[in-house]
């Protein structure tokens, strides 16, 4: 009896998780994909007009807001990439100079504990043209500095990038630091004995050795960029105009502000496709890593 129960209990214990996966994830994704082909507006409709199945996607392609959102996604992705570079520089310096390692790590990582909404609120205040940093620079005579980024549609995106780099760099520093520490310490000694210059050591030895860490960071960063929503809401709420819209913002806006279920679904499907395009390299990367490990063994 006991043996039979112990055979069945694990399967029974998995039922809730299985049900959630099938309904809330797999089912819900298929559901949204289905809705994206319908003409649903405020309420879901389940009739597909096959002669016009791609109407939501056609509209999306012609929508200026969506074009801006896609462009901003690329800009945000490239800009946030600075967080990885910055994170690596910080990690390399901390790793070289062991003094104060704990202190610096604590300082560089604390923004990660702060939510993106709070980050956005704080930076929004510093970008304030009358009382913020711009005013401070002007008052000490540096009147050429323009720090009123959020007010102009050309620079608002850079403001968001600056705030997200501030919030996220510490995380990449932690990953890079872990990567640096796993490098065999004999390499450092050997390089010193050979008189290899610091630049060559990093660019020709250390960075190539850490390519997996860099790739992991890049993929994690891209997945985070696709999901970026909170920081945009807190800093600009999409403005000025539509200039800081991103796909995540567009989708939520299509659902809540435009009350257009089918349209929001179509945008969400494109978001899923973008995520899949980033996700695929991760799977390939792990396969590659696996092969590299086996080759070494």
């Amino acid at each position, binding site marked *: 009896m006991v043996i039979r*129960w112990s055979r069945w209990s694990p399967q029974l*214990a998995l039922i809730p998780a299985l049900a959630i996966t099938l309904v809330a994830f797999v089912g819900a994704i298929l559901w949204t994909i289905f809705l994206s082909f319908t003409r649903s507006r405020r309420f879901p409709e389940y009739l597909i007009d096959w002669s016009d199945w791609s109407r939501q996607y056609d509209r999306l392609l012609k929508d200026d807001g969506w074009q801006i959102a896609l462009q901003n996604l690329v800009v945000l992705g490239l800009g946030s990439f600075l967080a990885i570079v910055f994170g690596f520089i910080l990690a390399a310096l901390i790793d070289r100079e062991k003094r104060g390692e704990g202190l610096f790590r604590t300082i560089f990582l604390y923004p990660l504990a702060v939510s993106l909404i709070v980050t956005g609120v704080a930076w929004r*205040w510093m970008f304030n043209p009358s009382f913020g940093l711009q005013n*401070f620079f002007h008052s000490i005579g540096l009147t050429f500095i323009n720090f009123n980024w959020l007010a102009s549609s050309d620079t608002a995106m850079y403001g968001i990038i600056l705030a997200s780099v*501030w919030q996220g760099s510490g995380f990449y520093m932690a990953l890079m630091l872990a990567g640096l520490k796993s490098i065999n310490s004999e390499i450092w000694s050997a390089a010193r004995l050979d008189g290899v210059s610091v630049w060559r050591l990093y660019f020709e030895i250390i960075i190539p050795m850490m390519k997996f860490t860099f790739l992991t960071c890049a993929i994690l960063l891209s997945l985070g960029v696709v999901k970026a929503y909170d920081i945009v809401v807190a800093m600009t709420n999409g403005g000025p105009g539509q200039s800081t819209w991103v796909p995540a913002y567009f989708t939520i806006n299509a659902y809540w502000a435009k009350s257009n279920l089918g349209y929001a679904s179509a945008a969400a499907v494109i978001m899923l496709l973008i995520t899949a395009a980033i996700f695929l390299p991760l799977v390939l990367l792990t396969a590659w*890593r*696996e092969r590299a490990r086996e080759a070494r063994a």
Partner: protein
Amino acid sequence: MTTFDRTIGATTNADIVVDRAPLFPRVKKGISGRSIAILVFLAICAAFFCVPLYIIVTTSFKTMDQIRQGDIFSLPMPLTFDAWWNAWDNACSGIKCDGLKVGFWNSMAILFPSLILSLGLSSVTGYALALWNVKWANTFLFVLFMCAFVPFQIIMIPLIILTGRGVPIDLFGFQFFAGLNVYGTIWGIAVVHAILSMPILTLIFRNYYKGIPTEIMSAALMDSGSFWKIFVEIILPMSANILIVVLILQITSIWNDFLLGLTFGGLGTQPMSVVLANVVITTTGEAAYNENMAAALLTAIPPLFIYFVLGKFFVEGITAGAIKG
């Protein structure tokens, strides 16, 4: 084992060797010029990270008169706690002026049920997948791995429908709605948090339990232990480490969440971050900047407290949950 398993394993254990003594401790010498240059550079970077915190803290203690003078770096003169009290008690979001206290208690009320739901669900699932013979375990793990990456927007609309009244079902003339009917309540937000964190937490638990030696499991089975008995008496006492890491990861991510609270919260059940955003964004007339900054700090204090007290676990959790993004 397939490859995805290694990725997670790598981000959880192998890569995170943060505190390791150097193999060749360097001989203490006088400080070199290069060291000074590095330290100065790091100090400047540290200033970049600290300036926002300094500005928020000082602004929150200033009077509006002093803020209008425009020196953002000045120390509060006179120092006042009014903004903190106002932010907590009577800051306005929209037409209601109840301050952040409502949001604070909502966040607390969301936190506990969703912690219990998500930790309970994912630890048992991870345990069953790691230590018991389930034929379809690998397929299921792969699906979970994919689910952990899915953007929220792709499942948002079905989740709104399902947590609401649900879908009308007509079963042989017997009509009813299949839905949880919790949309807009504290429970709704808590349940959605538990659902969305299930894949990644299950993977974290599963990787941890996979490291338990098989001898322990066979001994426990010999001892005629049942599935639940082994879990409660042997596995749970061994899980203290992973439980605290996951607990901290969940507390900070639920507390810092904005999108789920916004989507599933109703009037009066919104979590603190949503109330904060409403207070700051929907101001009419001149914004009370000191109040806004105090509100932001009030929202940030719980996770910051956890970070400064339990930093090591926090970093471990955030890297393990990295793919949650």
